[in-house]
């Protein structure tokens, strides 16, 4: 699966969590722009993990602040 395809699939997953309909670009931040709290993060991460059959540990989550970093991380994880 290429990066564009991963991007598209995560984009469909984030919809129910993006309540204010914030426009998402690679630089969009989860804590700042999207105002995700820790519970939203957990549910969103669980949705991605189930979709791609991967684990994104909290240690890895700590390194992910923006949409672009998330897509890159998922690309890397599912390539394993």
């Amino acid at each position, binding site marked *: 699966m290429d990066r564009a395809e991963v991007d598209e699939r995560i984009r469909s997953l984030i919809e129910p969590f993006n309540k204010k309909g914030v426009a998402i670009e690679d630089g969009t931040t989860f804590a700042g722009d999207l105002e995700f*709290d820790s519970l939203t993060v957990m549910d969103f991460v669980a949705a991605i*993990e*189930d979709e791609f059959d991967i*684990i994104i*540990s*909290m240690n890895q989550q700590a390194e992910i602040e923006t949409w672009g970093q998330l897509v890159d991380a998922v690309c890397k994880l599912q390539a394993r």
Partner: protein
Amino acid sequence: MSEGIDQPDAPLQADQVPTAGDLFSKFDALIKQRTDLLASGVTDPFSLVMEKVLSPTRAICNGRDTILLGTYNYMGMTFDPDVIQAGKDALDNFGSGTTGSRVLNGTYVGHKACEDALKEFYAMDHAMVFSTGYQANLGIISTIAGKGDYIVLDIDSHASIWDGCALGNAEVVPFKHNDVEAMDKRLGRIPEGAGKLVVLEGVYSMLGDIAPLKEMIAVAKKHGAMVLVDEAHSMGFIGEHGRGVAEAQGVLDDVDFVIGTFSKSVGTVGGFCVSNHPKFEIMRLVCRPYVFTASLPPSVVATAATSIRKLMHGSNKRAHLWENSKRLHGGLTEFGFTLGTSESQSAIVAVIMPDLERGAAMWEALLHEGLYVNLARPPATPAGMTLLRCSLCAEHSADEVETILGMFERAGKAVGII
């Protein structure tokens, strides 16, 4: 006295805005929330002082005789005459403190006796006593799960479990509260060959709900994971011998590590881990929160050991505590309060408040009635809830529980929650 103490959280005036670099500016939002709450006129729920403690269930708070329904004194051991005598004797014979680590000069016969009592209580081979329950989780979790290992844990885990994860170097993977399938999926995705530790609690203290340990431990074992269960809120009460939820569900033999505390049913302070792992004793040398701190004072381990031995024979008290919990749960449900669980599952009954303001008002109304409960709010609570947590004691009489229900009814109506 400095003004800082008179007005600990006073909001910053415009001319007092700190220069860049004030490390405390990150707390500004919390300081403002607290200031706003106190400005509404309610008593500060987080600075209650008990002037006199009369028994496990009564104290004088703000000059008023108050029923205690917000302590973790589940089995009412704090004023047990045998427990108190054991503490006094140890003070006389061994002094006020050990002034040293367990692995240096801080292991007295009392510490060994306390560990022996725990081994007998749980019928397990090894027991290790820590200075607090917090340190037991901190120490065991951070030490056994190392770099490259995976810790799979419930998202509603206690702070001491999260801090144990943060102190160590393992990969940390949370799953939705009590969700067996979510846990199963995450365990199944862990790379082959990696060490796995599943961390669960018997009773989750915020809502007072229990874990489906039988199903969860079966799944953990299917994936070859080791299992640690924190039974802090169930020890002494749940299970035939008071060994906890794992005992009640018949799966204690499959638990690799039980973590517990002396600051709840046992009635003093301290923490422990019991295990049948053949190599468990090495923990005493490699577990930093065990090694690099002073051991418990002799009087504390003496009261703990005496209390633990008495809890072995506490089945009548356990039965009465269940009656209390069921009656309070049933009565509050009838009044129309929203509770954390649909039936009583532990000695904790959590009453869900509509918001922090009305929660604080209800807490204060109860205090004026002469009842102390625990006000819990985010971030300690799941899903941003404000809770009034009631924890029952085996020493609450049936009449006292009826009195408590009357207080809840009056306060709930006065505040407009029911």
